[in-house]
């Protein structure tokens, strides 16, 4: 696949880059719970911490709100990676949302790997509102891992004209 056949938003970031794998800037959809992880991302921003511009944050009320539909829709729409983050166990604003989410996520991750999705495309983590540093570190790590895999191909829906969804 040459860079010109990729949808415009997935083409390599630098026009003059020679090595496409190095220049590949993945698109990662991050579902962050509004009470902890989103505030953690906010803190990373306020603290001027550097992390890759690869993530697109979607704020959700709770990690327990995230259904498999949302994650699969992101993958189908061409996200190279998905990150889901909620409050640490015991810290959930709704008492048990993250505990329920933990059970669902482990089954979903195992099932998606079972049907052939690369394990590094999907990540789950807990980030609290005071962990700006950790948030930046997680984004760096996820971006590195997804970059290592290259652009997503599996379970990505292409329309007949060759474009993304």
């Amino acid at each position, binding site marked *: 696949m040459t860079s010109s056949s990729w949808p415009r938003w997935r083409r390599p970031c630098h026009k003059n880059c020679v090595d496409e794998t190095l220049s590949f800037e993945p698109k990662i959809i991050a579902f962050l719970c509004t009470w902890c992880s989103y505030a953690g991302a906010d803190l990373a921003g306020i603290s001027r911490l550097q992390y890759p511009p690869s993530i697109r944050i979607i704020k959700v009320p709770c990690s327990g709100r995230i259904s498999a539909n949302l994650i699969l829709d992101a993958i189908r729409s061409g996200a190279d990676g998905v990150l889901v983050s909620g409050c640490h166990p015991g810290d959930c604003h709704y008492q048990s949302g993250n505990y329920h989410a933990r059970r669902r996520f482990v089954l979903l991750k195992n099932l998606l790997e079972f*049907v052939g999705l690369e394990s590094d495309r999907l990540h789950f983590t807990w980030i609290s509102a005071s962990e700006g540093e950790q948030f930046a570190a997680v984004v760096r790590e996820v971006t590195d891992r997804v970059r290592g895999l290259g652009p997503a191909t599996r379970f*990505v*829906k292409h329309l007949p004209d060759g474009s993304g969804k």
Partner: protein
Amino acid sequence: MSQLNETITRALRERAGDLLAAGTVDAFVGFTTGTVPMVMRPLVARTPEEARQFVWNSFCVLNPANFLPELVQTLSGEGQVRVGVVATGCWSRNMVVQIQENRLRREQIHIVGIASRGMVLPRRVRALFAGREITRVEEKEHELVVSGPGFSETVSRWSVVRDNCRTCSHPNPVLFDEMLTSHSTRNPVADRFDQIEEIERMTPEERYQWFQGEVATCIRCYACRNACPLCYCPTCFVDESRPQWVGKSLDPVDVSLFHILRAYHCAGRCTDCGACEAACPMGIRMRLFTRKLEKDVLALFGTEAGMDPGQPQPLATYGLDDPQDFMLRG
């Protein structure tokens, strides 16, 4: 008919008739012969006379738990009802799931239990006689006598039994009011997740290719969903259009997502009754996906679906120390 099936059929007709006559139940759900060989038809008997049509054999593959709550609801228009129903191990577990999910109340059903010997997959029999028309199949003790124009052959019953019945761990009903047969003493298979482990050992690329090949023939008829006693959402995710989670076309990605989500919705609830595979016109082995979840639920949370109506389902509860090795450390 085999001796055993004849005994069960006779006992079933008698018990159902008695229960209906005594007014213990208002209706009784069982099976009767259909118009095509090897295809049984569900029958709801309202009178002892109708109950005389009940038949029991190895072709009762439809899961009566599927339509039981709706039947109870329909009949409830006439006041308090109690519906009798035959149940094997997996069906009774599905009824437990229905009770856990408040679809049924325990007192609304009267379960007449039958220890399962394993049901036959008609597709397997037809495959053995490809190109020949089967007009009659008679079940003997351990073999089936298959006949049609100009032929009559015997096949071993166990060779055409469904995969889920071969690895069955609960042939006996877990919830019942009375038993028609003695409890099965069949030993559970030790390697019940063999097929799943074999797939898990493949590389991601191989697994992807395997999965794509497995669902490639899907025609999106949703027979698997309709036959499943777990699938009762008023609006299924495949029918939702705002947002549309899964496209309606035969695009391989849409087909994949349909099968992934259908299986995922059964996590912690599926009893491996095999109704989906039995209903599939294309022979897709979608049980492999639900079994992967069944295996994980057992390994991670230590529970099996539909074993105890008093317990919450694995995904409706949580443990403080649930496994989280799969998570990234921040």
